[in-house]
């Protein structure tokens, strides 16, 4: 995927989502800086204890000392809590808002977007990009605030205490930055290659487990294992290399800390002996020398992450700026309302006449017309069957009727009016859709069945279930309509899911019904029920069936045979059989398989 580059690493694009929380942000930065200030102040207590109590052998100010320490501690703990908690909140809220925005955008996007990007890709944009951006706007920002201000406060303290020693330590800062930056870059590169090998290993496991039957029948266990061992060895090597680098890095860092310490001990020791500074001051410098390296490391790694985050921002922004290529016009929205705010009071009924009027069509990502000057009148109540091999492009007509896509030229008329004259939501509210792989949502049976008509009563639900003879499916479940169907309807068999999705479509009582028949073979009893359920749901409605079953096909009023994306034949079963063309071949081949099945099943 190409990503557009935006100025300032894309941060201005995120600003609107952060603005809302500027109060929180201000507070968390303020508290964070205060925490750092306190952290930088603590060594001064040691200094006082060494120089005043021990140096002058007195405990006169001990009470005040403890009190002050406790005050600083209380302030530090309170601000620490506030800044971490607030940045946590900030992270979660920004995350949440970004996700809401992305999700809402996705509900408006056209089908071509979903055809061009797979679910995994979109899911990652919605879930992981947003959470990375959220993390950056809070934690990485806080890391910068904490460590940046800690480093600055330490340097300021040093400057105010002793200029000579300050200069020595200050000289080390850029050197430290340089080394850390160098290693960080290398580590990023190595880690990238580790991620690649890792996905290879996951792929291996996937293959070894899902391909078990083939592996066994081919007796390629040893071959698979050898290949796996090669990948796992690559992984081991790369990881050890990364481990070596990060070990060098860590050692180098502690070494730099100790070098600073040695330097202070030497130069500081000299001026202490000369009486310029006291022991306490020396100890303060020693602790600063040791503490300096950590914030530098964190600053570098936060900066690297901030730069790395621009990819996520770009992807997120690309999603937000994606324009639906099927959109309702302003006048239509004015009258019918938009996706989230329909104006149902202005909606008229849909009768069910469909007409394709000189339609040309090309998919947005295609380079060939799949429909050219296509005309077809489908009067209310007509049953259209679309047949063809898998992947031949049978769903094109369905996509046009549903206005998931719009014709390149010509128009699709519903009840004599161009579909574009009314809103998508209006059209969709009158269309029922039964998918090949029936899609149920996790939730109860009732929630699923009501999907097309949220106000359906239990009585109506049961009536619909009886009509498609799916009532016993629900009855045998533990909690009847309140039974959970599991994610994707996982608790039900495919046949049962199909029956339920018929009931769902029936309940919505659509004027136009789209049906994508299942190809998978199911047991004969369920098969029979599905056949009769199909008969029930299409009765009296205009229907488009992407058909695989002979009985469905034969019964249709119009059959369209599709090959390589184009409609090659059109007519009734009888006409097409006489023609002895493509449909004839399709039909006889399927008939042979079915005949054997039926003969033997009996």
């Amino acid at each position, binding site marked *: 995927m190409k990503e557009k580059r935006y100025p300032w690493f894309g941060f201005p694009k995120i600003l609107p989502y952060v603005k809302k929380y500027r109060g929180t942000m201000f507070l968390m930065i303020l508290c964070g800086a205060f925490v750092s200030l306190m952290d930088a102040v603590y060594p001064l207590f*040691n200094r006082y204890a060494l120089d005043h109590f021990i140096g002058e052998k007195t405990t006169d100010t001990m009470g005040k000392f403890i009190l002050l320490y406790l005050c600083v501690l209380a302030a530090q703990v309170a601000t620490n809590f506030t800044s971490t908690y607030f940045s946590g909140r900030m992270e979660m809220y920004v995350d949440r808002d970004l996700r809401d925005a992305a999700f809402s955008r996705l509900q408006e996007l056209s089908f071509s977007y979903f055809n061009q990007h797979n679910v995994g890709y979109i899911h990652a944009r919605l879930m992981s990009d947003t959470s990375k951006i959220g993390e950056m706007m809070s934690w990485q920002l806080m890391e910068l605030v904490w460590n940046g201000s800690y480093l600055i406060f330490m340097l300021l303290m040093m400057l105010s205490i002793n200029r000579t020693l300050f200069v020595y330590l200050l000289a080390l800062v850029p050197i430290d930055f340089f080394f850390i930056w160098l290693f960080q870059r290398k580590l990023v590169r190595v880690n990238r290659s580790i991620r690649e090998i890792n996905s290879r290993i996951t792929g291996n496991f996937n293959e070894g487990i899902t391909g078990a039957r083939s592996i066994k029948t081919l007796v390629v*266990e040893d071959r698979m294992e050898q290949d796996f061992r090669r990948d796992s060895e690559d992984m081991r090597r790369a990881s050890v290399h990364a481990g070596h680098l990060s070990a060098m890095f860590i050692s180098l860092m502690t070494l730099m800390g100790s070098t600073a310490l040695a330097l202070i001990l030497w130069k500081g020791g000299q001026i202490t002996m000369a009486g310029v500074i006291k022991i306490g001051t020396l100890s303060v410098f020693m602790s600063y020398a040791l503490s300096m390296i950590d914030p530098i490391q964190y600053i570098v790694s936060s900066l690297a992450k901030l730069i790395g985050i621009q990819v996520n921002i770009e992807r997120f922004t690309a999603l937000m700026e994606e324009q639906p290529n099927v959109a309702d016009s302003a006048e239509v929205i004015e009258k019918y309302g938009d996706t989230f705010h329909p104006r149902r009071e202005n909606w008229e009924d849909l009768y069910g006449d469909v007409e394709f009027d000189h339609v040309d069509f090309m998919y947005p990502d295609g380079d060939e017309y799949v429909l050219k000057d296509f005309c077809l009148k489908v009067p209310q109540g007509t049953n259209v069957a679309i047949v063809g091999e898998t992947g031949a492009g049978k769903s094109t007509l369905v996509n046009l009727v549903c206005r998931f896509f719009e014709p390149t030229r010509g128009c699709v008329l519903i009840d004599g009016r161009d579909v574009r004259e009314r809103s998508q939501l209006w059209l969709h509210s009158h269309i029922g859709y039964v998918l090949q792989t029936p899609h149920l949502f996790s939730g109860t049976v009732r929630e699923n069945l009501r999907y097309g008509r949220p106000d359906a009563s239990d009585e109506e639900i049961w009536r619909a279930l009886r009509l498609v003879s799916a009532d016993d499916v629900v009855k045998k479940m533990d909690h009847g309509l309140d039974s959970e169907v599991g994610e994707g309807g996982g608790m039900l068999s495919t046949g049962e899911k199909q029956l339920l999705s018929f009931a769902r479509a029936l309940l919505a009582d659509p004027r136009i019904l789209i049906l994508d028949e299942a190809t998978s073979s199911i047991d004969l009893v369920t098969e029979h029920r599905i056949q009769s359920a199909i008969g029930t749901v299409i009765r009296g409605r205009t229907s488009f069936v992407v058909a695989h079953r002979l009985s469905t096909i034969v019964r249709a009023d119009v059959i369209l045979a599709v090959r390589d994306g184009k409609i090659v034949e059109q007519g009734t079963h009888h006409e097409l059989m006489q023609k002895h063309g493509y449909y004839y071949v399709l039909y006889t081949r399927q008939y042979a398989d079915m005949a*054997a099945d039926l003969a033997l099943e009996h």
Partner: protein
Amino acid sequence: MMRNVNAVDFPTNGSMIFYFLRGSKRWFFAAILSAWVVSLLDLVNPRIIGFTVDSVIDETGTNVPWWLAAFVKRVGGLTAIRSHLWMIALLVAGIALARALFRYFFEYFNTKGAEKLVKTMRDDLFGHILRLPYKWHSENAAGDIIQRCTSDVDTVKVFVSEQMTGLFRTMILMVLSLIFMFRIHTYLALASAFFIPVIIGYSLIFHNRIAASFEKADVEEGRLSSIAQENLTGVRVIRAFGREAYEKKRFEDQNRTYTSYWVRLMRTMSFFWSSGDLVSYLQTLVILVYGSSLAIRGAITAGDLIAFISYNELLTFPVRALGRTISEMSKAGISIDRLRYIMNAHEENDLPGAVTPPMDRDIFFDHVSFRYENANAKALSDVTFRIHAGNVFGILGGTGSGKSTLVHLLDRLYEPSEGRILIGDTDIKAIQRLYLREHIGMVLQEPYLFSRTLGDNIAMTKDEVVPEEIADAARIASLDETVQHMRSGYDTYVGERGVTLSGGQKQRTAIAQMLIKKPEIMIFDDSLSAVDAETDAKIREALQEKMAGRTVILISHRISTLMQADSILVLDHGKVAAQGTHEELLVTSPIYKKIFDLQMQGAEEMKQADSIQILNHGEGSAQSRPEKLMNHLEESKGGNMA
């Protein structure tokens, strides 16, 4: 390849971890030793600093450790050091260098060990899974097993290489620094030591609480993620029902719930962090105040106090991490358990003294019955038949008639519940399993291709292959022309599971894959279903020519595919319905004849019949063609089949 995993059974988590640790133990051992050196060196520097402050700068030092005294003596006494303070700096830097070196050793050895451990775990798991019975594979969800092999392995790795070695490191650091602290001043050390159990206990409680609420937040995240997933996969249904607004609300509600759980978790964590600071700084205060008063009384020197404070600081973070380690142990325990479930499943094995008899013999199914686990009905019941060596044997059966089960049993993917299968005179149970499978080639209806090139897929079963062999096999499978049209030819990458190929191409690749091995017994399990009739005939012709003399088992719906077989078995609901040659069956088996008529002449006959039917198909009462067919069969069955 030598394998001995098979014999191993792991009664406990510990025993399995120990087994996985073979080859990495020494690295971890070296890492822990290095960590101890680092800890020791960590403790040296504060003493030097303390000494420098006391003896050199302040001239009050008394309590000088022997090694430091020896160093001072060697460089020419206190006065020499005082005038050349860089020597101390050099000593500190030198120790720092040594420390950095051992720190590197620790990290490096630890990584070596960790990566070796992970590799051993992965290799063992993968090899083991490959050799688990097919039955095990069909009983366990792939996603779950993959999850175990990836994220649970990582959890174990992190636990061993970070938490366990961290534990050893912290222990030794704690012991050593307590010794050093006690040598400086007993009561002051006691005051510091008092905080250790407090910090550990407190951190343990918190981590358990965090873990609990983390789990809850995780569950909510899972819910949110699956709502998104469902929304994206169900986008057609949502649009078609016009339910965008509902979906939006559903997502936003869950998004709110999820966010509130996380915010709560953040609050707990922030509280933990800041109160952790509170305890640590309180400890510092106690030491500072008590130490100062001791120093004023002369019980310790200023340098001692500085050293003591350094020791105390060294301990702070490791001790705070200890609580976490302990609470993570339970998490790792769960992961190890999940891996043990896989490792303790038994691999396929051969009976003692399994043989390798010649395979070009008759195959005899002797009263074989089979029932799948959890199934009510038998998939095969009392099936007896003989396949003569060198014959082409056809099996005709409908969906779910048990024809695939039959060949699964022959290949020993499953074992018969009753009866036996003989090749020659040998029960296949007594034959070495891999030997058996190597000599039986099987092409499945939905073949599984591996994510490699087309050529690699074909050559998969052979170690050394010349390109001509691949081309030959491809030619018999009618794949060669297709390949010529591909830009990279046999180097075309077929994608995961062969997604870039069509169904027919996949089937033909799988056929070539089998042919290259020239097995004595070849099984085509409905494996020509996705190729057109013409190619189907072409492949069969080529097979007859090139593979003559081998036993071929053809399984199909289509009589046209089977009619030339030497013998055809008609399988019906797991029972043998009829057997004979095509000509014989046409006479003896009415059902075979029926299918034949329907398939061969069906289309022709239909053209006439439909002209009548089509006239009244508009009415609801009209029967579709298949329905008629069914009724027709029912009538004929009554008389002939019973």
